[in-house]
């Protein structure tokens, strides 16, 4: 091989290589151009799309729960508030050994099996980076005990929150109601956006009926989160609107007085301001502890409440259905006046019973010896049954319904509280449909004295009485007096809702009835003389009692039913308003198994009216000028049917 060949070869090889390198370079440039075009496509053409995707990746919208509005009574007494609570929370993905941590926590804190079960249940549906409460509402002592040992528990924290609290407890349990956890049932009805970040919802009472106002509007927080969703920092904040505070029409003083005045008896007290429909007191006794519901009622507690023979969960004021008994008589008298079957001068002779024409059946008066000749005022004052048998008989059931319906019997009052019941006003259609028989003439007589199938609620009775007090003017009963705006603190007063007035067909009809009711409290033979005689203001009232079970007439007529077991004794009813000439308050009282309206229910109403009109209780005080007189008028003995 010559040098020349070598060199020639060398040149040839170098030339060949250079060609190949040039081709490789060209292919390489083409490939890199494809890459560059692809990058341009991603970073310029599709930049907006990917930019959005990137933000969607990292940004999470986290709801910020609004603070629930407070509830006050008409004088500013707090009825529902939010108290700070300390919860023990566990962030599972920060805990190195969860079973060991839980076991060790049990040695320093009172963790029950139920707490553990609830924790596991919640943990199942919560991401591991989100804290799950193990214990709620820790005592200061337990908080301290944990803090001392805190270093041992990685991923366990004390979290401050707010818990709903009801300082007036069982005294307002039916009015205020309570909040509780949002149930699966609730979720079907609510708009989830409005409950973002919230875990509780109003379940009863004002908490439920005014849920929308109390709740507020959730805000949002935009946080940057990593791929597993753990929030890392806050990017933006849109504040929500806290719930509105409610100023109720309730006067807590009256509420307490009513509760105490009922004494041992269960029952309901409704006090209204007849001039605007404001509910001054709304008591259903017994109440219950609403705080039991806030943190989730245990099955045992719930069973206990359901099994309680006094039925504490049952709101007697709005849902209790009672026969009105003799409290219906003023309304019945008014119906007679309106229809023209009665006048002020109409009298009936009361021999102690009434018989229908062509019948020998005696419809008894509560007073076996009879009241003698009775006019309307005395009929109301002494609660003469025979007078109203006659009145009802002359009116007939159709006209009774026609003239009593405007008072709202058998209808909802429309109060802004949940669960109200309509009751039942006797009428032939209902009997035909539900009892499958034609209307008996005797039923008209029973209707005349508020017995039979009559069912009224205490609220209904109070609202109807307010109509009488106001000479026919009416206002829908309502519980919220003013709504406070959380932003500017301004109060928006809820205006009264007028109802169609009941016009008297003859001038003086209203006065006739009111005079009769005043006689009840202020005349010696009046059935409420006991509470009216020493009152510093004029009272118009009517007593009543209603059978709980259909006792034999003889047993029912026993004067005090002392031999009858409590649960079979008659319910005592009472309606009143005062001052009779310028009504400011109407009270309706039902004292279950109290037997006599005059003795069991009337004093409750009197004390409530004292407190409202005078600011303190005069009734029954030893220094009151007439209270020491021991003997009470015979009419006080009460009435029965």
């Amino acid at each position, binding site marked *: 091989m010559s040098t020349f060949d070598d060199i020639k070869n060398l040149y040839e090889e170098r030339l060949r290589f250079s060609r190949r390198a040039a081709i490789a370079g060209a292919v390489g440039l083409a490939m890199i151009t494809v890459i*560059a075009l*692809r*990058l341009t496509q991603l*970073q310029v053409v599709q930049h907006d799309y990917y930019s959005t995707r990137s933000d969607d990746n990292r940004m999470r919208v986290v709801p910020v729960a609004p603070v629930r509005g407070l509830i006050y009574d008409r004088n500013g007494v707090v009825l529902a508030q939010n108290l700070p609570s300390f919860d023990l929370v566990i962030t599972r993905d920060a805990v190195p050994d969860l079973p060991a941590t839980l076991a060790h926590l049990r040695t320093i804190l009172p963790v029950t099996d139920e707490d553990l079960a609830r924790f596991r249940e919640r943990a199942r549906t919560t991401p591991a980076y989100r804290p799950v409460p193990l214990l709620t509402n820790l005592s200061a002592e337990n908080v301290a005990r944990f803090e001392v040992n805190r270093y041992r528990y990685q991923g366990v924290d004390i979290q401050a929150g707010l818990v709903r609290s009801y300082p007036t407890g069982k005294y307002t349990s039916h009015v205020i109601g309570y909040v509780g956890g949002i149930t699966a049932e609730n979720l079907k009805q609510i708009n989830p956006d409005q409950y973002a970040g919230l875990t509780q919802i109003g379940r009863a009472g004002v908490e439920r009926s005014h849920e929308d106002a109390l709740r507020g509007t959730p805000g949002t927080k935009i946080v940057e989160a990593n791929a597993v969703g753990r929030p*890392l920092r806050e990017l933006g904040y849109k504040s929500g609107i806290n719930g509105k505070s409610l100023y109720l029409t309730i006067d807590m003083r009256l509420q307490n007085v009513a509760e105490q005045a009922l004494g041992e008896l269960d029952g309901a007290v409704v006090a209204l301001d007849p001039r605007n429909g404001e509910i001054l007191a709304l008591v259903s006794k017994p109440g219950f502890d609403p705080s039991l519901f806030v943190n989730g009622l245990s099955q045992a507690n719930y069973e206990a409440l359901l099994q309680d023979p006094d039925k504490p969960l049952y709101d007697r004021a709005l849902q209790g259905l009672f026969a009105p008994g003799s409290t219906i008589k003023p309304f019945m008298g008014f119906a007679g006046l309106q229809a023209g079957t009665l006048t002020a001068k109409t009298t009936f002779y009361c021999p102690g019973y009434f018989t229908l024409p062509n019948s020998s059946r005696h419809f008894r008066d509560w007073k076996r010896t009879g009241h003698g000749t009775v006019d309307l005022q005395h009929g109301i004052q002494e609660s003469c049954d025979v007078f109203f048998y006659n009145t009802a008989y002359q009116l007939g059931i159709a006209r009774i319904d026609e003239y009593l319906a405007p008072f709202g019997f058998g209808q909802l009052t429309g109060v802004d509280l949940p669960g109200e019941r309509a009751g039942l006003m006797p009428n032939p259609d209902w009997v035909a449909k539900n009892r499958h028989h034609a209307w008996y003439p005797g039923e008209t007589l029973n209707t005349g004295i508020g017995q039979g199938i009559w069912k009224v609620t205490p609220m209904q009775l109070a609202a109807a009485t307010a109509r009488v007090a106001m000479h026919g003017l009416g206002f829908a009963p309502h519980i919220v007096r003013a709504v406070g705006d959380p932003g500017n603190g301004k109060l928006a007063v809820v205006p009264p809702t007028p109802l169609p007035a009941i016009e008297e067909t003859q001038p003086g009809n209203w006065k006739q009835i009111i005079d009769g009711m005043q006689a009840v409290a202020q005349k010696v033979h009046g059935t409420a003389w006991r509470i009216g005689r020493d009152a510093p203001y004029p009272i118009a009232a009517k007593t009543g009692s209603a059978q709980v079970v259909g006792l034999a007439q003889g047993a029912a007529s026993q004067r005090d039913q002392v031999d009858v077991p409590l649960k079979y004794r008659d319910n005592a009813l009472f309606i009143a308003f005062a001052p009779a000439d310028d009504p400011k308050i109407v009270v309706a009282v039902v004292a279950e198994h109290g037997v006599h309206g005059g003795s069991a229910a009337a004093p409750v109403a009197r004390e409530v009216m004292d407190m409202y009109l005078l600011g303190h209780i005069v009734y029954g005080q030893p220094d009151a000028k007439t209270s020491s007189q021991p003997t009470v008028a015979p009419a006080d003995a009460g009435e029965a049917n």
Partner: protein
Amino acid sequence: MSGDTVLQEHDAQRNPRHLILSHVDPWLLGLLLLTCAIGLATLYSATDGSRSMVIDQAERLVLGVVVMFTIAQIPPEWLRRIAPWLYGFALLLLVAVIALGYHSKGAQRWLVIGPLRFQPAELMKLGMPLAIAAFLHAKTLPPSVWTTLSSLVIIMVPVGLIAMQPDLGTAVLVLATGLLALYFGGLRWRWVLAATALILAAAPVIWLRLHDYQRERLLTFLNPGRDPLGAGYHITQSKIAIGSGGFWGKGWLLGTQAKLDFLPEAHTDFIFSVFAEEMGLIGVMVLLTLYLAIVARCMIIAMRAQDSFQRILAGSLGMTFFVYVFINVGMVVGLLPVVGVPLPLVSYGGTSMVSLLAGFGMLMAIHTHRKLLTN
């Protein structure tokens, strides 16, 4: 070569005091260090400010530069002579790693010898071009059919072993190195065209006849450790990172895709996405230009090289470096399937950095040991 007598050592004219530096190509060194500096800055961001990982990588860079300078001192003839031994040694280690390799992410790639832990496949990245270049140097070029077939055997045995580990990415790169060496050795065009045509014709037909899940399975089968949750998530997040960077980028350390853990393998295979997110199209073009400049410098060195061995070696090393970049970037922008190929000089990883710089050491050796024909 009998022409040695008229040739002079290039070195003789250089200052002996700078003997070591005289074998360093300043162009290549400058471009490499610039790229590595960008790599370290990007790594710092991709690891969310992990100093220890950046220091780790910088130590490897220093080690790599030392290895590069050392190899640059070796005359290319020596390299040619040790080529078969190095290839044989690497082949032995590949067999060893199959037998007793260290498991990492479900694949056997690592060999632990005392304190050393490295991937023999990386050694083969150097052994392969050396072996082919040395083999072809001894033959008449362009290679005959027999020479071509022998070369293919030299190439396919280690590629098969690496694919068995399994490490599809490295196998592809080693295959590319060998084939590129064969190409620069003057492989007949009909072979090149036939092979290219065969691959181009067969690949899409096979690929298209597969169902999506079969493609997925195929990729997973070839490379199980890399992508257990499906290639879709990686590529989607990578495209979001790149696309959201836009023209100007989000700014250094301000990328969110990697920082918030949406982008998997952000500091290794998908580090280009981090860079693209933070530096934008403008930064990406600068980086790609740097890579192209490195490749161009390699090709210049190759064209100035003085024998077939050196040319083939330099040419294949240079173009393999380009293939590295192309496969990695092609993968992260969603043009190529996800195979485990790191971005050279930038991705976090030890042996890859050292073996790359060792390769550039050979290029420097080739360039600085040239002999002048006259004077």
